[in-house]
């Protein structure tokens, strides 16, 4: 067992977990933040994406212990009083159907826009599609997810 301490959505959290506990299980089962999902067992689907120290991470690929001291943001911590522009864009553009991939898509989308803005690069449709390589959606055919991220990119 290991004691892990990190900041999750702005609040300090600390727990005694088994060494092999994955960050996603820590978030879902210990912190009971169930907006972060598990859609696969091979790190392919992206339903588990969270931000660790400001960067998108598949939380199924990281041990909770490896996030010691980190600032973690999950989908529950994205809205700041009002919806984040990325969240609003998904609603505006019908970027979700069953909603299962959506938290991961939003977390990946925010990260993608931040990275492109920081690098001064244009996030066009081809770039969005390329950047979504690690996120699978079975419902939307991606059409409206791409539109959602493009709208948020213009607003963020």
């Amino acid at each position, binding site marked *: 067992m290991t004691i892990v301490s990190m900041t999750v959505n702005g609040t300090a959290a600390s727990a005694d977990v088994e060494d092999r506990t994955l960050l996603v299980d820590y978030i879902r089962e210990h912190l009971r933040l169930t907006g972060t999902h598990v859609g696969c067992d*091979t790190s392919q689907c992206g339903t588990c994406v969270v931000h660790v120290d400001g960067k998108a991470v598949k939380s199924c690929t990281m041990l909770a212990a490896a996030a010691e001291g980190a600032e973690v943001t999950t*989908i529950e911590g994205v809205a700041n009083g009002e919806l984040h522009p990325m*969240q609003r864009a998904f609603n505006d553009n*019908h970027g979700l159907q069953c909603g299962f991939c959506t938290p991961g898509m939003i977390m990946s989308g925010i990260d993608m826009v931040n990275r492109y803005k920081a690098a001064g690069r244009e996030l066009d449709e081809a770039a969005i599609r390329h950047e979504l390589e690690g996120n699978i959606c079975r*419902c939307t055919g991606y059409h409206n997810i791409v539109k959602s991220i493009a709208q948020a990119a213009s607003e963020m």
Partner: protein
Amino acid sequence: MSEGIGAPVKRKEDKRFITGKGKYTDDIRMENQAYAAFVRSPHAHAHIQGIEASAAEGMSGVIAVLTGAQLTDDGIGNLICGWAISSKDGSPMNMGAWSALATGKVRYVGDAVAVVIAESKDEAQAAAEAVEVSYSELPVAASIAAALADGAPEIHENAPGNVIYDWELGDGDATEAALAGAAHVTEMDITNNRLAPNAMEPRSAVATYDDAEDHYTLYSTSQNPHVARLVLSAFYQVAPEHKLRVIAPDVGGGFGSKIYIYPEEIVCLWASMKTRRSVKWTAERTESFLTDAHGRDHVTRARMGFDADGRIVGFKVSTKANFGAYMSLFSSAVPTYLYATLLSGTYDIPAIHCEVLACYTNTVPVDAYRGAGRPEASFVVERLMETAAREMGKDPAELRRANFVREFPYQTQVIMNYDSGDFEGNMNQAMEAADWAGFAARKAEAANRGKLRGVGMACYIEACGIAPSAAVGSLGAGVGLWESAEVRVNPVGTIEVLTGSHSHGQGHETTFAQVVAERFGVPLDSIQIVHGDTDKVQFGMGTYGSRSGPVGISAIVKACDKVEVKVRKIAAHLLECDPDELVMEDSQVKVPGTNKALGWHEVGLAAYTAHNLPADMEPGLKEGAFYDPENFTFPMGCFIAEVEIDPGTGKTDVVKFVASDDFGVIINPMIVEGQVHGGIAQGVGQALLEEMVYDESGQPVSGSYMDYTMPRAEDVPSFVVEHHNTRCATNPLGIKGCGEAGAIGSPPAVINAITDAIGNNDISMPATSAKVWAAIRASGTGMAAE
């Protein structure tokens, strides 16, 4: 009205999903919850010789190890297929026994043999690995060809030759005569590849037994919680219906795979009673590939005959369908009444005959997956039309135009009676949107870049609005396929609509509310849709087969009709006017042009205070209805795909995709278009990427996202989705349904485009780069382009 029928209202349900507050089954944690892990067969076909559980039972956290023998002793029944199909000779289908935990034999890799219940998921999984099952392996039949070969291993003792049924529809003699006299016959062998449904939320179940009440509660990833309760109760004898509550909370996609009741739900319920603990199980993705019912898997030989003018004279189809190791809940209906009945396509065909041979194999059970039978039919019809046009030197669009059904109602030779449509209108719209006329220039431009460009069309039709109960009953269905609704107006005028439909991405909380808002002239926000809980909602049939619009909404409309009658009577009584003079708008019930008006809430209050109601009227304002459709509905459309292929690698890019659909009346175009987008991506996935592969020994080869290629954002383009709608003639709002169309029309459109590009018609799905590259080499097209 901006919130009513036809308005692209943003979804009411989105907020909880975009903020991480959705409540899916795996998010639920009960007090006193334990975890189940299944011991699964590593062999495709074997006798179980013994199960040694004592080591596992002694492991940390283990509460119980349970086997099939105990399940049988406790009287839990076998899983069943609920649609009886008879063979040509009148004999019933050969349904083999399927126990939720195998006894005697295992029949596919993943067949559950035992279950471990433990304090934690990790402990359950560790103990499941320690359960020692000794097997003696048996010969395996992992494909249709292997199962039907002479001397094939017998999978079920009551299914000689592994045949489930040998069924037919249509007039065989007339069809053969027509083909014999045809000026041209196009003949093809077609395989429809096996798919894994892959809803992003894996299946999950949380079962709780309350011994004080002798009552069970099941949270489950179900598309149809009432059907689940009925089947769990009536057939599997888990608990009587009134002692079993099934709740399907937020469900993360279904596509058919969450219609069925699987062994895991049965076992979790039973284990919760055995252990007096809540029992939770959630599939890992590998388990989903191993156990979720797969889709498609047909092998077909088809012949279509034409007269000298290019009119179809006859169509003969012989299909072999793989059912996997057991008959899943609706498996038998898929390659019969959901397939052969659509083989007339959008065309006037005077003679059709279809034979279907269904067989067992040592693979996971196969059942309905988005489209279910209709994509297979559409693929056969539209591949033959395209190929015939090319063989006869005709324009594929013109060949279709010459054969379209033009008058309605139209009785096909295969049961269905099409009520409405303007097939040519949809084709014209799609051709215009796709700039069909400009294709040659685009092809030439692509050739300059070293790319092979091709165009493909498909005019699909499907049968939705499943289904008229008496009709399906006469065809063998074990259930009626109506839908129910209850509309409750509260004393303050807000409205709850309880529906037997279930939303797992379709947006019912918005669209159903739009219908009611428009009907009563009240705000969308004052309406709440309630679904998915057998304790709250009256019996209903659930969501599949694009039925929630045409059937589910029709039930709501019927309940609204009854509410409206009572509202008018109450308001007329209070306003001293004629009930027929009243209109309902702007949250008022009023006589236009006068000052006679009541607030909508005042009518609600009057109904519940009951101080001043018409004589003999009961208090309250709530009505229920059951709607049984009088016919199927027939959404159709024309899809056009354009592809560009790199002749050096065989890689295919879908560069343009245009859909023109006829869905009848549309409630929310934004949501309808989203359904089409998702369906097209699934169809493009089938055409280019996806295949569930088993090797000869029955081992799944593509059982993870490392091996099974899901369509990703870069694999599909943005889509052009247009509508040319004709009203459905057989339900109150004229809705046809839209949930499966995209997945039905897109595979033939994409394959027709690829074969056009490479000049070689011999390509099967999925058209991977390797296959396309080889086909280019075989046809020599690649050399020409290079």
